[in-house]
């Protein structure tokens, strides 16, 4: 079975190497497979979507925030439209629920007018300014002292993990390669142009490399003696609430933005939960994923500004993500230091929304730099449709179980995820390799018990399907082993196998 999985070994050469398996890297890889060329994505973690792509707001923004003329302005609106066409085919859960920016002061009302005007220039469809009464009528949970709101019907919520795996699976399906646990060590150059990428899994010869390394993208640039930009990781913390309070709000609720961020929002998730967050503060360590007591308190306070009755006791988990802050705009440009290296860096909000549009822009840049683009006639734009057992009618469920009995074994009770769905996630083109990888693809363990019941079972299924011992199953990152073998003898001098 393992042979059908995308390769763990690095090919000797490729036309393009994409560095980083976040949503941007995965979208670029997929975009490249639309052409007859060889493209390889390398990712240092055991799975894709393990950096910024795994911990963000999961919102496909309408696009009124960005300053006209910037990459952000252009690619946000374009990306938002692209998802509308491709999300379903790629299996990216997406719900177009619109968004409201809520104003509570006269100054903020003026800001809404500015955003409205900006949105018009950026080409955002359907923007409307709503009165306080209209806002409350639509969203009864909103603070009573609201003065008005900006309605953006094209905003949507989407699953950022499924966006990344959807792009990655489709890319692999169309001939792209994803090599995980493969970190970049350096670039091999000749006369200032790229010849190969040096990795922990060996060398891969290539003329083109794309730096999509997220919070690590400045470090990757430094490997090419390129110090044209720097990345300041900015942490955002979130609290996720149980589905039982999923009715709390029906649309994405933003406060009126300040200079630094879009503020602390209250929003449904695409899967029917509600989240509150994120806050925003700079950190030094690009691996710092700790949530803080003060931060969580600030999020709760911030959320209550918009929705006073946020039921914090319904929290099921808290997490934090790092934004790759590279300045005002996305950094989409050839490296000034190394010919053949291109940056897709500084991708913070609206990065998830813009990802497929960033991919188009980057591939266009490569073409301008001499990459020959011949259409791949065999390109299949969709992923095979995967049934979600819990959403089917009983007779459809019966048919599925008859075809594969594992459809009849529910592993995750909270989210009703079957063993067949988990096995399929592991054997997908860019399949899950970790417990969290399974969780991100099929939601086993993302419900209210947070894997308390299904965790040991998912671990056992991973071990079986990957042909590895339980003790080698990991939670998420490379060294995140979950279980040790039993001790042979115990007592004063414990000895482990």
């Amino acid at each position, binding site marked *: 079975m393992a042979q059908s999985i995308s390769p763990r070994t690095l090919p000797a050469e490729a036309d393009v190497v994409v560095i980083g398996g976040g949503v941007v890297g995965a979208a670029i890889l997929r975009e490249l497979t639309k052409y007859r060329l060889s493209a390889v994505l390398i990712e240092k973690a055991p799975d894709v979507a393990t950096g910024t792509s795994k911990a963000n707001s999961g919102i496909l923004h309408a696009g009124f925030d960005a300053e006209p003329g910037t990459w952000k302005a252009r690619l946000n609106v374009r990306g938002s439209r692209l998802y509308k066409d491709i999300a379903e085919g790629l299996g990216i859960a997406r719900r177009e629920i619109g968004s409201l920016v809520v104003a509570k002061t006269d100054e903020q009302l003026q800001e809404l007018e500015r955003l409205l005007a900006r949105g018009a220039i950026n080409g955002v469809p359907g923007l409307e300014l709503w009165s306080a009464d209209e806002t409350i009528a639509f969203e009864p949970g909103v603070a009573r002292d609201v003065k008005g709101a900006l309605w953006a019907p094209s905003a949507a919520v989407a699953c950022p993990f499924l966006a990344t795996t959807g792009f990655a699976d489709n890319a692999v399906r169309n001939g792209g390669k994803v090599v995980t646990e493969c970190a970049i060590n350096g670039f091999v150059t000749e006369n200032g142009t790229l010849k190969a990428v040096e990795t922990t899994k060996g060398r891969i010869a290539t003329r083109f490399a794309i730096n999509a390394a997220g919070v690590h993208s400045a470090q990757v640039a430094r490997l090419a003696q390129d110090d044209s930009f720097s990345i300041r990781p900015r942490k955002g913390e979130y609290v996720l609430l149980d589905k039982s309070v999923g009715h709390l709000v029906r649309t994405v609720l933003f406060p009126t933005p300040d200079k630094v961020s879009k503020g602390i929002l209250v929003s449904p998730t695409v899967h029917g939960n509600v989240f509150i967050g994120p806050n925003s503060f700079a950190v030094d360590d690009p691996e710092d994923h700790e949530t803080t007591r003060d931060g969580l308190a600030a999020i709760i306070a911030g959320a209550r500004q918009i929705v006073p009755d946020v039921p914090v006791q319904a929290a099921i988990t808290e997490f934090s993500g790092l934004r790759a802050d590279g300045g005002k705009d996305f950094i989409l440009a050839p490296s000034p230091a190394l010919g053949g290296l291109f940056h897709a860096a500084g991708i913070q909000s609206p990065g998830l929304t813009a990802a497929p549009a960033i991919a188009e822009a980057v591939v266009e840049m490569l073409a301008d730099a001499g990459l020959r683009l011949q259409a791949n006639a065999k390109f299949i734009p969709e992923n095979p449709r995967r049934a979600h057992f819990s959403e089917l009618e009983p007779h459809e469920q019966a048919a599925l179980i008859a075809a594969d009995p594992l459809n009849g074994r529910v592993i995750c009770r909270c989210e009703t995820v079957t063993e067949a769905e988990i096995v399929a996630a592991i054997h997908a083109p860019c399949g899950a390799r970790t417990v969290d990888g399974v969780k991100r693809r099929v939601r086993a363990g993302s419900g209210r018990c947070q894997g308390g019941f299904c965790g040991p079972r998912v671990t056992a299924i991973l071990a079986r399907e990957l042909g590895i011992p339980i003790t080698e199953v990991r939670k998420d990152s490379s060294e995140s082993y979950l279980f040790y073998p039993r001790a*042979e*003898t*115990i*007592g004063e001098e414990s000895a482990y196998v």
Partner: protein
Amino acid sequence: MSRVTQPIQCIGCPIGCGGDVVLEDGKVVDMHGFNCDVGQAYAAEEVIAPKRMVTTTVRLKGGALALLPVVSAKPIPKGRIFDCVNALRAVEVAAPIKAGDVILADALGVGVDIVAARSVAAA
């Protein structure tokens, strides 16, 4: 003549009396803080020869489970818990097993059998 006072926490009932037992040359000569016969008897035994039930698992083959839970038929001396668990670590049994089957007879020579806590059918 050595006289020592040892604090003992009674576990006989939810009240959880805490008291002291006074020993002279290893014999109980006085105690206070225990308000019932059960507590006094417990304190006297706990200070001289504390005993505990031991529960752990042994490896199992030929059944639907990898491990068989086992339990001492009676309490064993508290100081021998680790020895007992270690002795059981080396034990492997085969299904079928019936609850109560002796898994390790007279463990550590203390006169207590270790028995299967449950039944396991052959796979």
